[in-house]
């Protein structure tokens, strides 16, 4: 089966979702929701087991005898300084989700936990669980995928495709080739859906920020379409014209704005309280994160089980949807580093930033809510406007809101451009310089998918559609891990 067949199958599969969503977005969202419910109810334990296996494998690989193996030839050295390596990695992995959920997620968990726990405990539990969703487990999923891609592409010299590890480890017989081909199609499909979902969420947030600034109530679909149109123009230009390292600069600008926003909140807010809560959250997270990965809430029914499915499981599957895309990206920027450096960098630095980010934004939300300047219920009910609502309780809120809108837009544009590139590369058989035409086709499909998700007007529907598409990756990622372990064993055995 050749590359052309791969490209057409992937485009047809993605196009089917676009067509279905355009024809009946509510039907698509309902179908996705029922598939995801069934998957989470029957296999929730397996999703959590998989993330634990990935985290333990990452840690073991870093400290085992394989840790010294270089992701490239032995004489190769890293292309980027450690600072820019970590910044780029973080921008690719988290992007617009940070701005979207920074305030809303701790607030939502707090209101849920408060039904059972005293407010003080509910506050620290809500920040802990938010960091758990964005911490080591999330980055173990990205890290392992990136490690597999980097090892097979730069150490072994195979094409940058998810099928390469299968073919290298199990030969070029019809079965490994067919399984590899199927994995390539599913990877392309999952990247497209995952990315489009995050574009939709980004558009919801930018639209809500603009509506807040201009003083329109909500803004509705019309404003969403307007924002979406502007962003489409913004991402088609880099797809048509190679901007060199321009995209890296845009992504670094978005991260710089995010860090500046964090500093602004710390300095204009209750500084010592925010620093104390960050230290508190760090201790809580480091002491409990590993064991939290084994919690499946098996003895809880009803609301707790629903909460676990719609948050923890949904997040883990969301990271899986993004893993092939982020994996390719972090593999590329990590060429020349050792497995130990790679794993430690991927796990520690982004998790460290997540701890600080969510502790500060979450605690600021609780502080402002206690003083009556912010409503946690409102943050839960309209997550897209939560960050803007929180900023209103601080001085110079308009400037900060504009900064959030700019950062969110930059994250969307850089993500779509990089995703269109990765999709074009995957669908051209691993060609590192895919044609502009293929990149444009993927850019257009990502846009159409994003539009379909915007039409659903629901963040929950978007999350269900992403989770449905990422479902096969729970299995695929374990298969890739086996390929990596076999190849490493063989390499050490050959020496």
């Amino acid at each position: 089966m050749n590359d052309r067949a791969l490209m057409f199958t992937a485009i047809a599969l993605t196009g089917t979702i676009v067509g279905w969503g355009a024809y009946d977005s509510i039907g698509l969202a309902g179908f996705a929701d029922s598939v995801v419910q069934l998957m989470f109810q029957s296999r929730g334990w397996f999703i959590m087991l998989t993330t634990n296996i990935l985290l333990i494998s990452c840690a073991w690989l870093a400290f085992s005898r394989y840790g010294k193996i270089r992701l490239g030839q032995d004489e190769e050295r890293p292309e980027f300084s450690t600072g820019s390596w970590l910044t780029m990695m973080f921008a690719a992995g988290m992007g617009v989700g940070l701005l979207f959920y920074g305030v809303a997620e701790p607030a939502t968990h707090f209101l849920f936990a408060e039904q059972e726990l005293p407010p003080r405990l509910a506050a620290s539990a809500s920040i802990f669980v938010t960091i758990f969703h964005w911490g080591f487990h999330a980055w173990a999923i990205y890290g392992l995928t990136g490690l597999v891609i980097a090892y097979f592409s730069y150490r072994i010299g195979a094409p940058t495709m998810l099928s390469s590890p299968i073919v290298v480890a199990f030969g070029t017989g019809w079965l490994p080739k067919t399984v590899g081909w199927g994995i390539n199609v599913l990877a392309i499909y999952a990247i497209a859906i995952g990315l489009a979902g995050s574009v939709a969420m980004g558009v919801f947030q930018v639209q809500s920020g603009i509506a807040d600034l201009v003083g329109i109530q909500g803004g509705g679909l019309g404003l969403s379409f307007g924002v979406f149109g502007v962003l489409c123009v913004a991402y088609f230009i880099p797809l048509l014209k190679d901007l060199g390292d321009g995209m890296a600069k845009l992504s670094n600008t978005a991260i710089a704005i995010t860090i500046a926003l964090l500093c602004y909140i710390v300095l204009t807010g209750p500084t010592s309280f925010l620093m104390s809560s960050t230290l508190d959250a760090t201790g809580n997270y480091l002491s409990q994160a590993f064991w939290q990965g084994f919690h499946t809430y098996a003895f809880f029914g009803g609301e707790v089980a629903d909460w676990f499915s719609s948050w923890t499981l949904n997040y883990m599957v969301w990271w899986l949807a993004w893993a092939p895309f982020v994996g390719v990206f972090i593999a590329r920027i990590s060429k020349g580093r050792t497995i130990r450096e790679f794993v430690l960098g991927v796990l520690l630095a982004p998790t460290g930033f997540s701890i600080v980010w969510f502790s500060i934004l979450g605690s600021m939300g609780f502080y402002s809510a206690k003083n009556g300047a912010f409503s946690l219920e409102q943050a839960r009910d309209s997550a897209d406007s939560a960050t803007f609502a929180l900023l209103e309780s601080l001085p110079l809120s308009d400037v900060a809101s504009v900064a959030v809108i700019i950062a969110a837009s930059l994250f969307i544009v850089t993500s779509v451009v990089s995703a269109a590139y990765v999709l074009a590369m995957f669908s051209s058989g691993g060609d590192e310089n895919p044609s502009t035409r293929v990149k444009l086709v993927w850019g257009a499909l990502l846009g159409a998918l994003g539009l379909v998700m915007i039409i659903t007007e629901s963040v929950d529907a978007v999350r269900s559609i992403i989770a449905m598409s990422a479902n096969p990756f729970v299995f695929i990622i374990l298969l890739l891990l086996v390929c990596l372990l076999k190849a490493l064993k063989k390499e050490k055995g050959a020496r």
Partner: protein
Amino acid sequence: MTGHILDTVLNIWVFVFIGILFFLYFKEDPADKK
């Protein structure tokens, strides 16, 4: 009842998959035998 059967079937596939992974990991490579 149908729910239970579906649940069991979905989980059996997971067990089979885990079995396949173990088999693949420990299976000797034809090249290694030579």
